[in-house]
């Protein structure tokens, strides 16, 4: 272990804002430990579950369990918790975030105190656990139920947050009313549950303010990330895996807003100075899907060392411009949340309908390829997570089929060179989010090298 830890130094980020995330995350964890001591309510929570603003308005402190697992992974200290879960009878093929979390919680419950050397002080015992059955992730529906076996007195509340999939014969406007109605009801059910748990009523004026702040933050993030279109790009996906923290864990707080205000300023200055992630930007890549390997974020630096940058990613882009999301005339903050949710998930439907063979997920890639002047796509297949990773290969295949943006010359049948178009080069990395036993640095970097060579040869054969 000693040898491994020495090698794992602090990763260099392009922006100062991204570098400031570490202490912020540390503060989440110690904050929840403090809050627990002070008798404040803490709730186990998942990202992208729409309840951020509701919790903030009720002073319930969220404990982001995926985040804690990610920290264990980044510190290369997840293995012992994963093993514990396995010895409870849980298969290693399941979501490793959940296995890490359940393993940790069971251990803490068994000891009656934090497991030895718990990363950053450990994950606190919650007062409640907020699950979510979505169309997105089975583990969110099952994880806390499984944890409850080891803490039967901690209540679980599960909210249903559906959104419609893309169909040929049904438009989202056909189903929107009953989707939104259901989401509103589910959120009201959650509020009632939280009121019961805390013994205080929801202050709806405060919730309105929080939701309002959340919406302003969405717009600010959208504007800020849009600055990355600049050539050279001032910020890459490596940094975005840090700046996702205020986006996904602090929505509805002034800190999150202020953070992105700071990042916005920093990026504008960099753009003005033409200061890029790397000095000599050669290839602009799109991180087109998949959660990162948290223990190997330095692979982004490896890309950078080859002159490759990531101006955009679809991963953790959990916001859209609120100006482009349909919002009816309502002041009810719960309704606003529901409409925002629905609008986010159907955001690419209309665009997809206009291009034959397209699909919202593919359309999203195309838009970013064009907006961010992309030369190639990289995806990561994490073996333990079906949620974000099923369908990625198909998206790449479908994209290649319907979208060939690179003009090249090829030898025709008569031996003459003909002009044609080819698809963007792509690379699929394979490992896991936190299970380091699936990762081989040598292998990963060999693949990256080969990909860079492909980009090089495509660039050469490109007809201008």
């Amino acid at each position, binding site marked *: 272990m000693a040898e491994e830890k020495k090698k794992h130094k602090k990763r260099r980020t392009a922006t100062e804002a991204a570098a400031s995330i570490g202490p912020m995350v540390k503060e989440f964890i110690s904050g929840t430990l403090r809050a627990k001591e002070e008798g404040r309510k803490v709730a186990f929570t998942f990202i992208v579950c729409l309840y951020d603003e509701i919790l903030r308005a009720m002073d319930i402190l969220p404990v982001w369990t995926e985040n804690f697992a990610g920290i264990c992974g980044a510190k290369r200290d997840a293995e012992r918790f994963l093993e514990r879960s396995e010895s*409870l009878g849980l298969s290693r093929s399941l979501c490793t975030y959940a296995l890490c979390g359940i393993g940790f919680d069971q251990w803490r419950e068994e000891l009656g105190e934090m497991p030895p050397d718990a990363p950053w002080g450990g994950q606190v015992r919650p007062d409640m656990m907020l699950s979510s059955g979505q169309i997105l992730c*089975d583990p969110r529906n*099952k994880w806390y139920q499984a944890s409850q076996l080891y803490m039967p007195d901690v209540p*679980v509340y599960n909210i*249903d947050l559906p959104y419609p*999939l893309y169909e040929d014969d049904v438009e989202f406007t056909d189903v929107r009313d*009953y989707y939104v109605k259901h989401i509103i009801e589910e959120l009201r059910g959650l509020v009632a549950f939280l009121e019961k748990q805390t013994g205080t009523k929801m202050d709806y004026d405060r919730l309105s303010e929080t939701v309002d702040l959340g919406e302003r933050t969405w717009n600010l993030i959208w504007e800020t990330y849009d600055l990355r279109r600049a050539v050279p790009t001032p910020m890459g996906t490596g940094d975005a895996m840090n700046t996702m923290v205020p986006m996904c864990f602090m929505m509805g707080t002034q800190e999150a807003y202020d953070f992105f205000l700071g990042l916005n300023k920093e990026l504008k200055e960099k753009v003005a100075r033409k200061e890029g992630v790397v000095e000599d930007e050669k290839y602009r890549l799109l991180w087109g899907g998949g959660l990162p390997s948290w223990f190997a974020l330095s692979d982004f630096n490896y890309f950078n060392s080859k002159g490759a940058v990531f101006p955009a990613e679809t991963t953790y882009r959990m916001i859209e411009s609120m100006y482009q999301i349909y919002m009816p005339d309502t002041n009810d903050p719960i309704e606003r949340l529901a409409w925002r949710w629905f609008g986010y998930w159907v955001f690419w439907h209309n665009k997809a309908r206009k291009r034959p063979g397209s699909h919202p997920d593919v359309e999203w890639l195309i838009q970013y390829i064009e907006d961010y002047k992309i030369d190639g796509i990289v995806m990561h297949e994490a073996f333990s997570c079906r949620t974000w990773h099923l369908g990625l*290969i198909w998206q790449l295949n479908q994209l290649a089929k319907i979208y060939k943006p690179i003009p090249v010359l090829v030898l025709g049948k008569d031996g003459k060179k003909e002009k044609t178009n080819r698809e963007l080069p792509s690379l699929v990395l394979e490992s896991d989010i936190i299970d380091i036993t699936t990762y081989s640095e040598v292998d990963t970097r060999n693949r990256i090298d080969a990909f860079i060579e492909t980009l090089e040869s495509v660039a050469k054969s490109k007809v201008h």
Partner: protein
Amino acid sequence: MNEKNSDIFSRIESYYSDYGQRAKELKNEGKKIIGYVCSFIPLEIITAAGCVPFRMRGDIHEPITKGNINLETIACPFYRSCFDLSVKGRYDFLDGSIVAHACDSMARTYAVWKYTLDLPYSHFVNLPHTLSKSSMEFFNEELNTFRKSLGGFAGKEISDDDLAEAIGLYNENRDKVKALYELRKPDPPIISGTELTKILTVGASLPVAEANQLFDEVLEELGKRKESPLKKVRRIMIDGACVDNIELVKLIEDLGGNVVIDTLCNGTRDNLPHTDIGGDPVSALADRYLNKINCPRTYRENKEQDLHKDLESRFGDIGFYAREFKADGAILYVYKYCDPFGFEVPARKAYFDSIKLPLLYLEDEYSAGTIGQLKTRIQAFLEMLG
């Protein structure tokens, strides 16, 4: 099967080994065949539309190859097998396929399925995960969306009367399956697990009226069995998802156990719950599919923070079946990469423990290649039961 003159069993054998032969015939007669893979597809609506629902099977003997081109290997191996066979043309008589929001492996690959197979019709039925009042209302609406969409494809407006008629046929079907299960109660059972698996598998490949006819003939034939062809040995329950190839059941029976009851998708989960009649047919279907089908993908609230009551509300059917069918031991059979079942393994074990039913937990791929490994485990388990 010793009954030499029982041509019903040879017909079943033929339908089982050449799976889909009847659907092909019906297709040639101009019927629209609609494929599905999961218990949550409201078959009554498909039948009411004048289409034929067809339960797609995987094949544990067929290595997954072409399916891997568009579908990641981290998906449910059973679902991947079904997809692989479809890509290879095994089900090219299908006019459409319906996918339900049962699990990530299905929901997250809907586009893969839809675009790769490119069938004339496809639809995704979005099931809520919770059982709140609002969820039921939502699912009601979602079923109506499906009803309208499929009606559009079939060129037929599906009326309440059409639905009521289909519900009647399926309820009859479930009565007949119940009667078949009754034959497993004697010791030794009148019918082996291998036989019943084949019968039910075949039933799911036929129009419901034909399946009803077939089950009637089977029941009549089995009525003639004065003595069980089986030995009086340990009685085994299988708990799990979809086991649509007979090999596992046959292996247990070859090793000297009788499979007498299950909670499987293509067993009791699909086949026993009835739809209420008399009221609004769509609400009744919503209630049957969301509420009555007990699958770990649906969240059942632990209302009283009581572990024992929670286990009972989630797994009570296991205990009920175990008592009714006098199981001596159970095999919890879970596919690798299955999040809904996988996360429940400790809780299920705790439940089996609480009802004092010896349990063997098997995690498996969907492949004939693992039979040797299963054999040692199952044989050892049967030795343990004594």
